[in-house]
C-alpha cells in the first residue's frame, strides 16, 4: 500500500438538488491496494456518494481528486482518460444483453485501445479465468446466474488493469456462498494486483470479510470511519445499530455463518 491516495475528496457535498444535498462534508482518501467499504442504511446516500466519486454525478460542493486531477474540473476527454484507469461494477451488472460474455468483457479493450483482436480476446479470456467464469465465454448474460454475472461484470471492470474499482452493492441479491465468492475475488484483485476497491454495501458480513477501512453514512454525513473493529465499537447510535442488528446476534460469530 502506498501513501499517495489514488482518490481523494474533501468536504464534498453530493446529491441531486443543490438546496437539499443528500450528503455534505464528506472527505475520503483511498490508497493503492486498499478496500474501502461505504456502509449505511437505505437512503443514506451510499450510491449517490459512489456515483459522485466515480465521475457519474457532479458534486454540489467540493472536489473529487482522481489520480491527482480534479475529476470534474478537467475537460471531457481528460476525464474519460482518468476514468479509463478506474473500473465500475454496477449493482445490476449493466452487461450488454445482446453480446456474449466474452464480447462484454472485451468491449473496453476494443473501444478504448488499439490492441489487436487476438490479444483483446485472450486478455478477456484470462480475466474471466481469473474470476473462475472462463467456461461462460460463449453464453449471453441472460443465460447465466446472478453470481456469475457479477463475476463477468468484474472481469469487464478489470480488463484494462485499473488502479481502482468502484463496486455498487457487489453482493446484493446473492446467496451467502456466492456473496463470499465475490468477496474473495475482490480480495484476490486487491492482493494480486494492488487494486484499490471502493465498495458500497449494506452487507455487514461482507464488510467484515473484505474491508480495510469502513465509512458509515447516516443523517447526510459520515457517522463513523476507521477499521472494522473501530467502527464496530463506535458509540454512535446509528452505527451501533447497523453492526448490532438482531440478526447479527442470531448466531454467535462463526456459527451458522460462512466465515472468510
Amino acid at each position, binding site marked *: 500500500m502506498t501513501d499517495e491516495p489514488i482518490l481523494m475528496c474533501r468536504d464534498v457535498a453530493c446529491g441531486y438538488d443543490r438546496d437539499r444535498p443528500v450528503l455534505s462534508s464528506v472527505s475520503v482518501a483511498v490508497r493503492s491496494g486498499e478496500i474501502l467499504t461505504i456502509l449505511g442504511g437505505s437512503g443514506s446516500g451510499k450510491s449517490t456518494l459512489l456515483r459522485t466519486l466515480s465521475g457519474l454525478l457532479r458534486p454540489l460542493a467540493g472536489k473529487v481528486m482522481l489520480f491527482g486531477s480534479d475529476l470534474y474540473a478537467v475537460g471531457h476527454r481528460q476525464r474519460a482518460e482518468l476514468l479509463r484507469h478506474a473500473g465500475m461494477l454496477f449493482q445490476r451488472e449493466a452487461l*450488454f*444483453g*445482446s453480446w456474449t460474455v*466474452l464480447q462484454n468483457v472485451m468491449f473496453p*479493450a476494443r473501444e478504448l*485501445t*488499439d*490492441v*489487436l483482436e*487476438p*490479444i483483446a480476446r*485472450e*486478455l478477456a*479470456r*484470462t*480475466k*474471466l*479465468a*481469473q474470476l473462475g467464469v*472462463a*467456461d461462460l*465465454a*460463449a453464453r*449471453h*448474460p*441472460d*443465460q447465466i446466474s446472478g453470481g456469475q454475472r457479477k463475476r463477468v461484470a468484474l472481469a469487464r471492470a478489470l*480488463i*484494462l*488493469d485499473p488502479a481502482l474499482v468502484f463496486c455498487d452493492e457487489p453482493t446484493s441479491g446473492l446467496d451467502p456462498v456466492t456473496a463470499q465468492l465475490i468477496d474473495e475475488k475482490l480480495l484476490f484483485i486487491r492482493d*494480486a*494486483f494492488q487494486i484499490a476497491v471502493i465498495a458500497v454495501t449494506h452487507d455487514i458480513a461482507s464488510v467484515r470479510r473484505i474491508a480495510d477501512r469502513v465509512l458509515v453514512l447516516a443523517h447526510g454525513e459520515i457517522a463513523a470511519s476507521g477499521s472494522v473493529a473501530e467502527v464496530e465499537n463506535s458509540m454512535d447510535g446509528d452505527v451501533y445499530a447497523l453492526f448490532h442488528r438482531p440478526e447479527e446476534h442470531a448466531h454467535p460469530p462463526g456459527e451458522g455463518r460462512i466465515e472468510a
Partner: protein
Amino acid sequence: MRTLVEHENGYARLRLAGDLRIAESSALYENLLALSQDPSTARVELDLSGVESIDSAGAVTLRLGKELLARSGKALSFSNLSEAQWRVLQSVAAAELRGARAEPAPSALERIGERAIRAQTNAQEFAAVLARALRGAGGWLLGKESKHTGALIEQAVLMGANAVPIVTLLGALIGVVLAFQAAYQLRQFGAQLFMAEVVSIGMVREFGAVITAVILSGRSGAAMAAELGTMSINEELDALRSMGIDPVSYLVPPRLLAMSLITPLLSMWATAAGIAGGVAIAGGLGVPPIAVYHRMTDSLVPSDFVLGFIKSLLFGWIIALIGCYMGLRTRGGAHNVGHNTTRAVVVSILLIVISDSLVTTVWTVTHD
C-alpha cells in the same frame, strides 16, 4: 517500448526496453508473429531486463507469442525476468484457462435440426396461447369478466382513439393517390369518371382495412409485444402465475377484444377518409366531385362492406395475437424485447398480406 532484435544462426534475441502494456502489446505480438513465420529462426529469446512494467495485456501477449512460436515448432524463452514480472506472468498463466476456449460451432445438420425443433415448439406455444386467449375472450363475451371492463376500455382508447389522426391522414392520402393513378390511366379512354369506382371499391374492400392494419401492427402490435415482453423479463408474468392467475387468460383477451372492436371501426374511418380524399382531388383532375360521389354510392354494394369488415376483423386478431404471443415468449434481457417487438411487426404485416390475398381470392371465387 523499444525492441532490439539480434539474429544469430537460427536464434533470435529480442531485447525489450520500456513499458510492456496494452498500448505496446500489439507491436510485440506482430514481432513474434513475424518470427514464428520466419523459416530462418528456430529459437527466440525475450530479454526483459529493460522492461519497466508489464500489465495483463503485456503478459497475455507474451503467452500468446509463446503459443504462436510453439505452433510453428519454435521455442520461446524469457530471460532476466524480475520477481514482479514473473508474478504478472503467473497471473495470466495458461493453466488457469481451463475451459476458456470457445465451444465448437454446431454443424449445418445440427443447426437445421435445432431450427426444426424450435419451429415445432413455437407452433405448439402459439397454439396454446391461441386456445387460452380464445377461451378467455369467450369468458369476457359471456360477461364473466365484467369487473375487468375498464381494462378493455383502456386498451381500446390506447390503441384506437389515439390512432385516429394517423389513420385519417394515411387513409385520405391513399384515397388521393388512388384517384390520381386511376384518373391518369382512365383519361386515355376518356373515362376519368370511373376513378370513382376505383377509389370507393378499392378503399372499402381493400385499402381501408389493409392500411389500418399496417398502422396498427406498427403501433399497437409493437406496443403489446414491448409491454408484455418487458413484463416478462421483469418477472411480472411469474408474479401473476404465483398468484394463480394465468397471464395469457388475464392479459391477452382485453387486447384481443379491443382490437376486434377498434380495427373495424378504424378501417371504416380510414375508408371514409380515403373516399373523401378521392372526392376532394377529383375537382383538380377535371371530374366534378358531385358526379364522383354519386358514382361511388351507386357502385358500392353491401357485400363490399362485408368483405372489408371481415378483413379488418381478421387483421385485428392477427395483430393482437402475434403482438401478445411475441411479448409473452420474451425471455432474457432488454435486447430480446426489441427483437421480439420487431418480429411482432414483421410477422403481423406478413400474415396480414397473406391472409388478405387468401380472403380476396376465396371471396372473389365464391361471391363475384
